[in-house]
């Protein structure tokens, strides 16, 4: 497949989950993929898998909350691949605390990763795409929490709601330069095994139990696979969505239609 031939794409949070699946799919479709994440071993592992399957990929260490780190990422990407066509702002944090439990510090920490990170990706991604002036695509990973409320998700709702409208503002401002900005809104995604989830989010085992209850109420009675969400990223990065900007792409098995 060649829907992304010669496109240079940065994927933040590319070391695991949806980001990892996206890196593999984009590379299979012909893109040069820059994988960013903080856990070096995970990023390097994805890079190796891509290179082993004759794709083109490069891991670059990156903290989405740091302006310096973004500048370094953009410079290194341009040095490696010549130009940037697309930035997929996929990295994000988690917080499953109730409003009473959640400290202001934790609330702000989540916003820094999930919302500020997207703002910086939009800001520096735009600057990089402007260098060649041919337009490009910026993708924001939000969630259905930007569209409906849920208990114990106040910080994530605030962050993802912000991301959704940040994308629309970007779409309006950057449309005349043919820079497209869209948001993706997954429902529940089968990202980690139960064991891995418990290891990564030791405080969130209640959320895992809750998730099992919720699956029964999803019209499709299952979680999304990371690969299915990755396909929505591929569509938004590709020229198949050339007239699409400021739009919300929901992928939730019918959850919020209900």
């Amino acid at each position, binding site marked *: 497949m060649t829907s992304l031939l010669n496109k240079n794409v940065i994927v933040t949070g590319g070391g695991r989950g949806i980001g990892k699946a996206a890196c593999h799919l984009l590379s299979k479709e012909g893109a040069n993929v820059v994988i960013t994440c903080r856990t070096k071993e995970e990023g390097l592992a994805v890079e190796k898998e891509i290179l082993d399957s004759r794709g083109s990929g490069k891991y670059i260490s990156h903290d989405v909350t740091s302006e310096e780190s973004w500048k370094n990422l953009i410079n290194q990407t341009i040095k490696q691949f010549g130009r940037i066509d697309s930035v997929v702002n996929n990295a994000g944090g988690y917080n499953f605390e109730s409003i009473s439990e959640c400290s202001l510090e934790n609330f702000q920490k989540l916003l820094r990763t999930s919302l500020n990170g997207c703002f910086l990706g939009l800001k520096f991604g735009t600057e990089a795409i402007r260098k060649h002036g041919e337009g490009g695509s910026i993708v924001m990973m939000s969630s259905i929490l930007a569209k409906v409320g849920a208990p114990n998700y106040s910080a994530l709702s605030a962050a993802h709601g912000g991301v959704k409208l940040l994308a629309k503002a970007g*779409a309006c401002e950057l449309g005349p330069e043919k820079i497209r900005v869209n948001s993706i809104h997954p429902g529940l995604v089968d990202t980690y095994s139960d064991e891995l989830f418990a290891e990564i989010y030791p405080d969130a085992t209640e959320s895992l139990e809750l998730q099992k209850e919720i699956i029964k109420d999803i019209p499709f009675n299952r979680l999304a696979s990371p690969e299915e969400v990755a396909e929505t990223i591929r569509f938004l990065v590709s020229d198949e969505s050339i007239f699409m*900007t400021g739009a919300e792409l929901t992928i939730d098995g019918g959850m919020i239609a209900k």
Partner: protein
Amino acid sequence: MGRLDNKIAIITGATSFGIGRETALRLAGEGASLTVTGRNEEAGNETADMVIKEGGKCLYIQHDVSNEDNWINVVDKTIDAYGSLDILVNNAGQFWVKSIADTSLEDFNEICSVNIDGTWLGMKHSLERMNNGGAIVNVSSLMGQMGLPDGSGYCASKGAVTSMTKAVALEAAEKKIRVNALHPGVIWTPMVGGGEQGDENLKNFFIQETPIRMVGLPEHMADAILFLCTAEYITGVDLNVDGGRLADGSMGSHAG
């Protein structure tokens, strides 16, 4: 290898230059076998010939989407010809602008019968005969989500399409059939005064109103419809493909 190999699809409103014909060519190019429908026999056969010339399989059936017997005939003949059914693209639609004072109840009923009844009948008669894992795409409109002066009939009918899409998505989930609405912005086709003979001034007006500074083309919609036909976990959504028109309200068109 195509993304729709061995799939059978019905596309309504595929009789002339526009979203329907372009979608027919796109889906057939990905391996689907087609029934294309519409009222104009000559134009319908032309679409079918174009698909066949590109190496696809295509059958034209004359069809008034507001007529229930016509729908039963279209589904019967498709299954007779190909053996089953996987995809329905409810694309046929009517569009006009007229002030609410000048719109008669007959006018209003007519646009509703084509846009609402036509879509509803298509879903009703296809769903139970469709293979598990199939897909329905209802072509609604940006105007199903926002107001258009002199568009009371069009907006009402498209709002209904968007809403019933969600209801039917929930019913169809049992068979893992996905039902989604596509919301095109301004697509430069004869329906809105565009296409090859369209007025350049009108085109420029639309371009300036759209953040991405272009009009949509039928091929852009065909790409989005193909995406909705293949995206296995997406159901009950409205997908806006409008160059940012809904996102900006009436503010963004003054920027840049």
